[in-house]
């Protein structure tokens, strides 16, 4: 029984290759269209995971900056409300928040020095400004494990409600923009994936239908001498699977080549300036597109052969 199944499998593969050989031009045409479709799918997957990766790393490095009010007041009874004491109190409160990694305080003078150091081109202008006009800032760093959209919003609201705080800034807007962009890419990618998947199914459908139409006479003969429908159909499935696998491998090689040549050698320095680390598809992403490729071939064959058997 097992040896008979092996014999059948051998025959199916042999017939599949005979079919490919007998329609080489049509198969190359179908292969090129399918390769192109899979390439676009892989490209979108690559774009998406990089955008997601960037957003993720951006989110995990998010910090919060607090601008403090000027609290230097001497009351009528002689009591002095010092900025330093206010800042120390706020820092102590912040340090008690869960997920806070580090808190840095920049007094007016430190803010002034910071500006002088990092903006040398406007040093002459800065020299004319009193250091006391510069803001007092507290910069908060978070533990990456704690960072999430909700966590940041909570911290933001808690800080905003505190006395002596002018305003709180963190890259919420940027994060929202990235989230929107990821969502847009996801939707666009999904629509394109659906379109390309449908076109791959159609290409596979057309290629197999062409074979069936060309080989209708042969199929009739095979049936007359006792071939079952499966005996005729299975080589077609194998044929489309071979086509899908080859098209997928070609598209992956093409994407990999483009990725290495253009991204790595030409744009890596440019992208690293923006702290963007470009990554290639991982095993799961590749498998996902490979599965879609196989499925499209399978469905194409199923729809084209359903009419005839």
């Amino acid at each position, binding site marked *: 029984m097992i*040896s*008979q*199944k092996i*014999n*059948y499998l*051998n*025959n199916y593969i042999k017939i599949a290759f*005979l079919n490919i050989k*007998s329609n080489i031009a049509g198969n190359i045409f179908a292969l090129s269209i399918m390769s192109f479709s899979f390439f676009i799918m892989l490209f979108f997957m690559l774009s998406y995971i990089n955008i997601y990766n960037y957003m993720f790393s951006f989110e995990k490095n998010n910090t919060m900056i607090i601008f403090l009010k000027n609290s230097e007041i001497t009351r009528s009874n002689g009591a002095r409300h010092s900025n330093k004491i206010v800042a120390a109190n706020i820092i102590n409160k912040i340090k008690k928040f869960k997920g806070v990694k580090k808190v840095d305080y920049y007094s007016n003078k430190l803010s002034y020095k910071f500006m002088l150091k990092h903006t040398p081109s406007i040093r002459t202008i800065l020299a004319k400004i009193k250091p006391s006009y510069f803001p007092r800032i507290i910069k908060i760093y978070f533990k990456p494990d704690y960072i999430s959209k909700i966590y940041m919003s909570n911290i933001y609201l808690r800080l905003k409600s505190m006395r002596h705080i002018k305003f709180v800034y963190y890259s919420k807007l940027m994060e929202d923009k990235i989230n929107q962009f990821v969502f847009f890419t996801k939707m666009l990618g999904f629509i394109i994936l659906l379109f390309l998947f449908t076109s791959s199914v159609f290409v596979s459908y057309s290629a197999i239908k062409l074979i069936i139409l060309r080989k209708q006479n*042969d199929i*009739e*003969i*095979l*049936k*007359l*001498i*006792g*071939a*079952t429908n499966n*005996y005729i159909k299975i080589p077609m499935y194998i044929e489309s699977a071979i086509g899908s696998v080859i098209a997928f491998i070609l598209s992956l090689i093409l994407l990999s080549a483009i990725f290495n040549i253009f991204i790595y050698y030409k744009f890596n320095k440019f992208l690293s300036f923006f702290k963007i680390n470009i990554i290639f598809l991982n095993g799961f992403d590749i498998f996902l597109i490979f599965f879609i490729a196989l499925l499209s071939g399978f469905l194409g064959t199923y729809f084209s052969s359903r009419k005839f058997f």
Partner: protein
Amino acid sequence: MHVYKSYDKNYILRDLSFNIYKGEFVFITGPSGAGKTTTMKMVIAMEKPTHGQINVFNEDISAIHPKQIPFLRRKIGFVFQDFKLLINRTVFQNVALGLEISGVSGSIIAKNVADILKAVELYQKRDEYPLSLSGGEQQRVAIARALVQNPSVLIADEPTGNLDFETASIIIDILKSFNNKGTTMIIATHDKTLIELGRARVIDITKN
């Protein structure tokens, strides 16, 4: 038994009844359009009778499940007037088809195909393609393909219809030799010369 076949209420066969026994050599005859081919097609379940019952191997094939048809056909060899060979396959590959379909191993296929090709004197041409062969040779390939599975019954529909007398007599000799080995032969023909050559029972479907 009592088989009727009609296309659009136009009856081709009316109340056709006959029996063929194991090991017989039988000619089914009748003029063109009498329904010989239709009768042959009904025997291998290519067509269904409008009324009546057809028993092959003691089984009513007019009620056979479509999935069982291929397995019935593997037990019955069929030879067509137009040979029905696959032109993109060699003589060897054409003859091997029936065995491949049955899932026979490569080594057995090689042996059986070689034996049958030797029997029909085409072993030397095993690697040639059908279109490079003469009509008689193509028909011998078709007979070899039908017989390679060692079927109990071989049905031939006008097997010599496109062949000259000399080639036709070779074909009949081949069929006779296999009949002597036990294969039941059913030959549909309107060619009286062939019937005389065969010297066997004749069933005239216009009278049955």
